[in-house]
């Protein structure tokens, strides 16, 4: 997939960041350099290879369904500027 204005618009909309022209140039250059590396992969046989998403295959770790203490309301809201009563408040 070529990196054109449409691609950049899609990325910006997904990540909710407005990129400057210089940033777009740098990002395009970096992506293209990784794309160059992908061309060497044609010589690799991936038949019967499973993907690795994590180093060890740990099963989902559960705990007993017991009530345990957690953060207080004060602690939860300590670092926000967007609070009203006991809720995070934002404009839609």
């Amino acid at each position, binding site marked *: *997939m070529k990196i054109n204005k449409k691609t950049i618009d899609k990325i910006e909309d997904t*990540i909710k*960041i407005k990129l400057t022209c210089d940033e777009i140039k740098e*990002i395009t250059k970096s992506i293209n350099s990784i794309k160059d590396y*992908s061309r*060497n992969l044609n010589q690799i046989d991936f038949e019967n290879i499973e993907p690795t998403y*994590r180093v060890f295959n740990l099963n989902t770790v559960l705990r007993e369904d017991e009530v345990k203490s957690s953060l207080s309301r004060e602690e939860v809201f300590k670092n926000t500027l967007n609070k009203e009563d006991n809720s995070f408040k934002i*404009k839609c």
Partner: protein
Amino acid sequence: MEVYYKSIKDIKKLLYNKEISSKELTINLLKKINERNEKLNAFITINERAIIEAERVNEKIKKDKEVHILTGIPYSLKDNIITKGILTTCGSAMLKDFIPTYDSTVNMILKDGILIGKTNLDEFGMGDSTKTSFYGVTKNPWNLKKVPGGSSGGSATAVAAGLSFYSLGSDTGGSIRQPAAFCGVVGLKPTYGLISRNGLISYGSSLDTIGPITRYVEDCAIVLNSIVDHDKLDSTSHKKNKIDYLKNLNKGIKNFTIGIPKEYFKDTLNPSIRNKIMDIIKQLEKRGAIIKEVSLPHTSYGIFSYYNIAKAEASLNLARFDGIRYGTFKNYDSIDEMYIKNRSDNFGTQVKKSISMGTYFLLKENYKDYYKKATLMRTLIKSDFEKVFKDVDILITPVTSSEAPYIDEKPDVNYDNDLLTININLAGVPAISVPCGKINNMPVGLQIIGDYFKEEKILRCAKIVESIRGKYEWNTDL
């Protein structure tokens, strides 16, 4: 030797023989940081409560001689490890007001140590120079015009400059080992899952590990002993029987088979670094090790695999910084405006680049050819290590392909340095960087890689390398 460069055991003796109190040590260290930090910029935050903590611990030491070895000893933490009540910034404007309301597991474990401060880093751990922090550039204590490496550059500098008896950093693709090499200190990236990541602000969740940065190999083993534990708060934390990493530390490497992977000794490797490492290998052979050339055939594909995976994971991990729970803007007209304002203004260029790259690789039309393929390649890279460790005990390689660059040098676009460290994170095996000498008065690191959970073997070899290298003259004239 100046007290600030002493080993953990030596400082412990002074504390327990009451030749110095934890409070005096802390006050004097804070004075030293005050003198040196302006030049070095190793610290973002100094712990205002350090002296009070030292007073509390003094009492503990007076009453009980059998306290933990790290009790009363000042340490530092990379500023992506959260600390309850103490500013934690990740080197970013996004978190410039963030005071965590809970503690990381590692900091809770070290509660009777004296947290002296939070060290500088590349923003959110994304970098290899400690030039990208919102809080300025950290300088290499061996040459103030050079970078200390990154992203744990602040930690490596603090330890090398005698401003911290040890530090904890984090390593996603070399971020402990490379700055340790550039700053002439020991840096260990443990096996993935050995140290709890609870409280480590994530970059690449399947790659990140916390690890010790120390001046001496024995200190590294002491710190590792302290921070290894299964943690229910980290679902990737391993349940393993605890090992005493000090027990066999001095047993040497006789009959160890040491593999030298040819892919790590490319023509682009600085010849002086190559010669230093080869000299050490010859000395190890004289001490009874069996040296064997080996191959990790998928090494060069690590760049594709690592950058896809690390950046994809970063883009997901940093999505939480939306301005709602932690952010710096209150006035906005819509939620989109809030997101865009917060994220555009508060992330630096490197972080925006990482998030953008990761998002690109995860787009529906790209996923199969990029991210998915990267995970298949990761399987092959991991398998290379698993196969080679059937034949050898450890591997030895360089940590960096060149000396520490100058701060004003243009960033290197070739990935030679990355290839020496990133595959270790993809596989999840442990590796240590140990100083093996100097070139042009700048330190050089040697990397020892081990099989899963074989930190004991790599520490044993690192101890021998340290003794071959000989006494280290710290740069006390800063």
